[in-house]
């Protein structure tokens, strides 16, 4: 843990220093980068290439897969369960034998850009090269310089444990034909510099499309449109569509709320949770205000494919739903209202509103069910270091009770979600709670 904390502390220190751009920042930078890798700074106020690479590696959230929690940074071997078997992210420390110590900056750029290792084999797309291909050569070089600066760790990377036929890498040729388009990000001259910066970060290092695939629909291909939002395999969380204002579409959000959600982890419109909490914790909280704002500008501008859910709720029609609604209202008043408010308005920003909260009413009920089952803390971030948490209710409420209360919050106060069954709750309970 110490290394990860140190990493985080240094990163926290680096950002305000970079923003202030005073000469006071220089000695601290000099102390934190190993002399062997450091290039002399041409201008003392410029953060070094290593510092920039550290920042960009955070923007790419490399640590999430390439570091086992509590282990040495980038020593790899974190298991990534997939429907096809388990992948193990490799050691990317500068160790020559087991890491990437023998790579050149060209090798690294080629891997990021083409999804091919220096030895020529095709990478599994768990490595988000379909996004990283958009990263510029200069940014790739900075990330490589930073990776060269971390302590080398001699630790062999585990072999992937994939079932037949997925263990045959030549199958990846087909995947690449369908889903991989090589090429650096090309700015849209019709848009602002800020929008383009946001698009570059979201589509490239941010690799948001890995979970929120509908971003692919920007390309306009109907085939890709099939992926608008979806259950994240093995994690049992639903990644909402970023293009639908009924899901995570941000068209009607204030820019500051988007910035807060991404960087602080809580906002007046909602809170990050599940896999997105990890993204904020590892990555977004460390990004500069300018970069987060640029991402927010880009996300807010994504075209909406459906209007916002703004109709008032109809009274539940079916008798069994009416019963669940009544039972749910009773449970809500007893267990939920003290924080989320009798009218579902929450207490902002720490207790999120449930009324008109897109993640409550969206087509998949997986996320609201899981929140009630498992509770959760938003990530502890620079801007919200001591978050307020929600207790789990899995041990207190049975499947029928949870189905009722989730049905209630999905249909009360103008929310337009579909009712939830005890069976859906039970499947998630057994999948996520021991």
């Amino acid at each position, binding site marked *: 843990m110490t290394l990860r904390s140190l990493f985080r502390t240094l990163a926290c220190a680096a950002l*305000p220093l970079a923003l202030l751009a005073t000469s006071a920042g220089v000695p601290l930078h000099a102390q934190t980068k190993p002399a062997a890798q450091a290039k002399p700074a041409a201008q003392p106020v410029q953060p070094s290439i290593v510092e920039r690479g550290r920042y960009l590696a955070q923007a790419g959230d490399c640590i999430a897969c390439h570091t086992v929690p*509590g282990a040495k940074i980038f020593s790899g071997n974190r298991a990534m369960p997939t429907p096809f078997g388990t992948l193990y992210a490799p050691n990317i420390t500068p160790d020559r034998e087991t890491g990437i110590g023998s790579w050149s900056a060209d090798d690294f750029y080629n891997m990021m850009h083409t999804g091919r290792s220096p030895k020529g084999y095709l990478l599994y797309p768990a490595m988000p090269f379909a996004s990283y291909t958009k990263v510029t050569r200069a940014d790739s070089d900075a990330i490589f310089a930073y990776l060269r600066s971390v302590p080398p760790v001699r630790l062999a990377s585990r072999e992937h444990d994939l079932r037949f036929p997925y263990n045959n890498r030549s199958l990846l040729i087909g995947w690449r034909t369908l889903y991989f388009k090589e090429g650096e990000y090309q700015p849209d001259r019709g848009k602002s510099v800020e929008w383009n910066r946001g698009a570059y970060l979201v589509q490239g290092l941010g690799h948001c499309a890995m979970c929120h695939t509908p971003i692919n629909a920007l390309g306009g291909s109907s085939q890709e449109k099939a992926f608008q939002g979806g259950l994240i395999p093995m994690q049992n969380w639903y990644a909402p569509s970023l293009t639908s204002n009924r899901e995570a579409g941000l068209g009607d959000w204030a820019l500051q709320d988007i910035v807060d959600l991404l960087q602080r982890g809580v906002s007046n419109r909602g809170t990050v949770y599940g896999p997105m909490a990890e993204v904020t*914790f590892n990555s977004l909280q460390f990004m500069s205000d300018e970069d987060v704002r640029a991402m927010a500008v880009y996300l807010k501008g994504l075209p909406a494919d459906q209007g916002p859910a703004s109709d008032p709720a109809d009274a539940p029609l079916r008798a069994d739903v009416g019963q669940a609604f009544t039972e749910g209202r009773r449970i809500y008043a007893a267990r939920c209202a003290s924080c989320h408010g009798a009218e579902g*308005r929450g207490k902002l920003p720490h207790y999120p509103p449930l009324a008109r909260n897109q993640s409550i009413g969206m087509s998949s009920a997986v996320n609201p069910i899981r929140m009630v089952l*498992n509770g959760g*803390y938003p990530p502890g971030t620079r*801007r919200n270091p*001591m978050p*307020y948490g929600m207790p789990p209710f899995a041990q207190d409420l049975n499947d029928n009770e949870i189905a009722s209360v989730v049905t209630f919050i999905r249909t009360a106060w103008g929310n337009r979600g579909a009712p939830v069954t005890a069976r859906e709750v039970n499947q998630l309970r057994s999948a*996520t709670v021991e």
Partner: protein
Amino acid sequence: MNIILGMIGLGSAFVSGWASAQATAADRIPDTMEARVQACTGCHGAQGRGVENVYFPRLAGKPAGYLYNQLVAFRDGRRKYVPMNYLLAYLPDAYLMRMAEHFASLNPPPLVQPAVARSPELVRDGQRIVTQGIPGKKIPACVTCHGAELGGREPGIPGLLGLRADYVSAQLGAWRFGVRTALAPDCMQVIAASLSEPEVAAVSAYLASLPVTAARPVRQANVRLPLACGSEPQQGGQP
């Protein structure tokens, strides 16, 4: 550096000022640890007092170092229990320490447990192990480290009073099979792996039979413990 720290301080003051300006008086959330740990007290009881369910143990009054080590172990997966692993996954060290200190500072009256019928022989065997250890297996007496009154020892060794037999037995089993691990060297792993099942049952029965007293964690400098324990640094290092 002072100027920079000042700037960071100003920045956070601005953010919190902005947030409170947004909230009306009725919507205000208390800026307290008690409000922040409601996610914990739902299972562990008000003030971490403990609840009927044996698997949600009392947190109140345990040494802060011990609680902190457990929080970090759950967060990083060294101690496996899915709901806790999930809840703590994205919380930083400093906040976990604040949580640990919060529960360590509380001392609500213990839960009154219903009496359980136990075999006197089992309890007697347990008492022998707890107070004298098992010399033949080089297992030290529990009281040597956990305190003569079993109230624990600062900074990292928990008290053993008020734990139900099923919980103690499950924890020793988890240590033995690697589901619960502590900082290396993991002394309790050595002990749990050396205990036979009847010995575990005896220790669990005896501990559960003891009344919950006002015993608090022992504070004692420079004590030589019988085994090296990563959770209880001997040289006064960080917990």
